Every structure is written in C-alpha cells, then in structure tokens.
C-alpha cells in the first residue's frame, strides 16, 4: 500500500506528439482513482507511465517514498490488469497467477497457498488447472484479477478491464472489483471511458481531455460542479444541456427568446453558456420556459424528452410516473441547478 505522487509528469512520444501535458496530482494511500476521458485523450499513456511500460519524458513519479522514474516495471511492486487480460496462453491458471511470485523467489508451498487463496476469493478454484483458452471471457477476467492480487502489490493499475465483457457481467464485475479493492485497501488507478464505471467506482475522478486534466474531484463534485463545459457534457447521461445566452441583470436572456430569471453568474456580463442537467428540471404549468417536445424516449425508469428551448436543442428527463407527450409544455428551474460557463474557454463561472 502506498501513496502515489505525480509531479509535472509529461509525455512526448518519439514522433513529437505530446500525449500528456505536465500534470501533477497525488493519490492518497488506499484510494481508487478513476481516469476517464474520450478515446485518445491519454489515459492509457498516463497509466502505462505509472506502470513503467512507457518512459516518462519529464517530471517525477513516486510510489510510496520512492521515485520510480528509472525503476523497471517488475521492481515497482505494482500489478496491472489489461483490457484483453494478457494471460500467458501456455500456462495454467495457477501458473499464470503464480508466475510473478516465482520470480521473486518465494517457496513453492507459499506460492501455492497464495494462489489457492486468491482462487477462492475469485471463485476460480475449479479452474486452476485449465489453460486460458479453456476459459470464458469473464473467467479470464477473473484470472487477470487473481494474477494482480496474489502479488499483494502497492498499486493496482487497471486499463479498461471490463470493456470486453457483456453489459450484465460488466456490472457484476464492477461491483466485485470495487468490493475487492475496499477489502484489500490497495491504492488503485482505474482507466475507463465509461462514465457510469467512473461515477460508481471512484473515490476520486480525474477527467482528461486531449492530454490535459480538465477536473479532479469526487464523483459528487464532478457531477455537481463540473469545471468546464467539457466535463459537463462528458459526465452524466444524458449529458447536461448547454445553452447560449447573455447576462441581463439578475437573469440570462437565452438566444432565441426566453429568459432565465433569478439566476445569473456573479460578476460576469455579456455572453455566457448556461448548463442545466436534464434531470434538474421540473414540469410546471406556471413555469416560465416554453419547451417544444419533438420526441419522447422511453427508458424504463424514466422518460427522456428531446426538443427545443427558444430554438436551441434541449432535453428533459422525467420520472416514469409523469405524463410525457410531444407538443409545447412549460418548465420551471431551480436557480441552484443552473451552471454558468464562459463562452471562450468553457470554464465554470
């Protein structure tokens, strides 16, 4: 168990592409941090630098009290779970899990005991003598997990470990991994582009965009106070509505007509981007925002209405008990549920 510190860590690939701009953060001991962001934003690059599989161009990385920039992956006392599991095809499940321990010179009996223990924890006891080719995708995933936990590492690294599983298994494994990590209290970095995984598993989330950290915070902070329009539209499904408007006294005049009253950014004048989560809106006959509903999507637990607000696209999510139909309706807003962003860089105001 260890704390991880990144100090202005930067990555420039040999072809000159800057995959990660200098970034600094700490991961406290025992915490699970989720790196999330769109494809190509540098999540794997960052994770692989922590693992030692990719060279660090600049900056300093420490695991525990040790600067590990120049330490081999095998000597960093980490364990990694790969997206395609990366099991050794010629070894049995037991040998796959024990291989790392064997190289540390542990006695055979001790290795066998640890492998058995991990096998029990992950329901793999029956499968210990099988080869990876004789396992299902979910079982392989478990073996990859087992290989990581038998080593009792300082740090777990996960690179989209669930993305090859079907939706049901993914939900189940998500809960299992989280429970396992809580139990073992091992510091973890978990990469995903699935925002549900990010929200449900993380102690803290780091949102990456094009090689830069957009925001770092607890799931509640990321959801409740997104630092930019990028975070606002990336986290949360359906995404936050973003409307163009202009500050007008104590309210905002939206482009194309209606005015939002009783909510305005402090100390800001001129154009502004207004963010409203689809689930933060109430339908109310005496509301002051006219909403033209074009389509209603049935999602089971709730319904999603897509349409226009003063000519700008807008979505509202309502509980399944509410009546939803196309046509014009009125919306009411809670002032606290309105977010403001500047129009140039999309920063939160």
């Amino acid at each position: 168990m260890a704390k991880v510190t990144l100090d202005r860590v930067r990555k420039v690939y040999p072809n000159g592409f800057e995959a990660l701009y200098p970034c600094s953060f700490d991961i406290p001991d025992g915490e699970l941090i989720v790196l999330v962001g769109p494809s190509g934003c540098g999540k794997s690059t960052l994770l692989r630098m922590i693992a030692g599989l990719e060279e660090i161009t600049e900056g300093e990385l420490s695991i525990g009290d040790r600067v590990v920039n120049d330490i081999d992956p095998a000597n960093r006392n980490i364990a990694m779970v790969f997206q395609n599991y990366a099991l050794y095809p010629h070894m049995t499940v037991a040998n796959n899990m024990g291989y790392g321990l064997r190289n540390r010179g542990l006695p055979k009996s001790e290795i066998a005991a640890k492998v058995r223990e991990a096998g029990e924890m992950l329901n793999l006891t029956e499968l210990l003598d099988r080869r990876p080719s004789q396992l299902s995708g979910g079982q392989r995933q478990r073996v990859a997990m087992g290989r990581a936990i038998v080593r009792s590492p300082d740090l777990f690294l996960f690179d989209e470990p669930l993305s090859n599983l079907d939706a049901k298994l993914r939900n189940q494994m998500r809960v299992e991994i989280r429970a396992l990590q809580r139990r073992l209290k091992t510091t973890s970095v978990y990469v995903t582009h699935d925002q549900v995984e990010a929200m449900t598993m993380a102690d803290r989330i780091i949102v990456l965009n094009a090689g830069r950290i957009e925001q770092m915070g607890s799931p509640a902070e990321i959801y409740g106070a997104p630092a930019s329009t990028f975070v606002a539209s990336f986290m949360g499904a359906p995404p936050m509505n973003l409307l163009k408007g202009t500050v007008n006294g104590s309210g905002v005049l939206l482009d194309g007509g209606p005015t939002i009253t009783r909510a305005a950014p402090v100390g800001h004048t001129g154009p502004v981007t207004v963010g409203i989560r689809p689930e933060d809106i109430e339908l109310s006959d005496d509301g002051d925002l006219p909403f033209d509903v074009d389509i209603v999507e049935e999602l089971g637990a709730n319904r999603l209405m897509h349409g226009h607000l003063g000519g700008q696209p807008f979505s509202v999510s309502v509980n399944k008990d509410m009546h939803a139909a196309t046509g014009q309706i009125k919306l009411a807003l809670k002032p606290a549920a309105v977010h403001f962003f500047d129009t140039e860089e999309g920063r939160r105001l």
Partner: protein
Amino acid sequence: MKRTAFSNPWLPILLLVPQLSIIAVFFYWPAGYAIQSSFYLQDPFGFGSTFVGLENYTDLASSTNYLDSLKFTVLFTIIVTFLSLGIALLLAVKADKVLRGARTYRTLLMWVYAIAPPVAGLMGVMLFDQSRGNLTQLFRSLGWDYTLGVNYWDTAIAMISVSVWKQIPVNFIFFLSGLQAIPRSVREAALIDNPSGMRRFWDITFPLLAPTGFFLLIINITYALFDTFGIIDTIVKGEPGNNPMTLVYRVFVDGFRGGDLGGSSAQSVVLMVLVLVLTIVQFRFLERRIHYT
C-alpha cells in the same frame, strides 16, 4: 470445411487429373522404379540386370563408406539445424527490438535467401579456397593450416558454414513474424512479472514461439538432409575423395559416378523411408503438443 456438391461425379476427377498426373509422372513412377531397381544388380554397361533380392540393402549395411556418410549426415543435420535455427532466432530477437531502420535491416538479412544454392556454394568455395580464400588466409594468420577438399573436417566446416548461412534468412523471417505475433500486452504483463530479460525470454517468448520453432525444425532438417545438395556439389565438385558426404549426395555419386544404379536405388529407398518417418513424427506426435489455442 465446406462441402461443394458436383452434379456430375466425373467433373471433380477431371479437374484433379492434371495434378494427379504430375504427381504420378514425377513422383510415383520414379519412386516405384527406384524401389524396383533396388532389388536388381545393374550391368554397368547397360546390358540388362539381375535380380539379387535384398543384397543391395545388406551391402549398404556393411559398407563403411555408407555408414560413414550416414554418421556424417546425422552430425551435419544436427549442426546445421541447430546453428541456423539458433542464429536466426538470435537475429530475430534483436531485429524485433530495433525501432529505427527496422525494415532496411530485415531486407538486408533477407537478401541471402535470394541466392541460389550452387551460387552460395561457389561463394563458400571462394571464401574457403586454398590459396586465395579470405577465410583461409585468416585461419593461416591464426596459425591454422586450413585445407579445403583435402582435410575431411576442413571440408565439413565449409559445408556446414555455407549451409547454415544460406538457411538463416528463412528461419529469421519466420521467427520474426512469430515474435511479432505475440501480443504486446502479454509481453508487458511479463515485464511486470519478471525483471530478468533472459528469464522472460525462456519463460514466455520461447514457449510462445514453439509452434513456429517446431515447424522450422522440420523444414530445417529437410533442408539439411536434401536441399544442401547444390552447396555440397559445388564444394566437393563430384570428386568425393576423402571428403565428407551426405546421404543424398552419395546417392548421386554412387549412382552416376560409380555406375551402381541398384545400390543407389536402395539408398534412395532408405531416404524415402526416412522422409516418411519424419512426416509421421511431425503430424502425429509433436504438433499436437505445442498448440495453445
């Protein structure tokens, strides 16, 4: 496999005829003829032949020359196979790590493959030539009196070196593609599990290369046994003297230089049996054990 139904049962047979007749004319017929003539003693001047039963075979078993060639062939095959596989594997592992100029490097190594065996033999003869050979001169300066074509083992060294050199590119290409077929993440997992590059190679890379390696083993044994004929011929120049010879070359020397067609046929039959055994070993026993997926 997909089955296709032909409405006319004669059509598939008709389509197979060209292939089958080629095999029959160039393989079964000569093979049958060799088996037949191995039981006869041919008149050296071509005036008929006498049935002698298994005498040609028993003669082989008691011929010191033949047994010597047999021993040499076994040794030659083992050394050529081992060295050409070993060196190619080493080169492939190194080439796999090259990032810059990888393609040029590979192309350079491949060129040797384009050289015909007799030309390779000729180049070997030139390098090892008694008076002008660069290598001979190098050996001399080191105090080793190297004489190609006179000293048995000196000739053997030239044969082996040229044969190995000629076979390396093929092995190299197969090993390299075998290495590149190993998923990157598996290697990275090993990188995290094991700090020693050498141990990683033997524990992970080598076993995963085993299917390629086994295939190449068979290819190389066949090469050393049969396809080195051109190289040996150029070095020995049909004048066996005191020089070492492989079994295949002896078939040629005894049959066409010595005029002993019966004995030579018996030797060919022995070789055919050897090939048969090799093929059976390949398909029955080993291949089954080295596939993972």
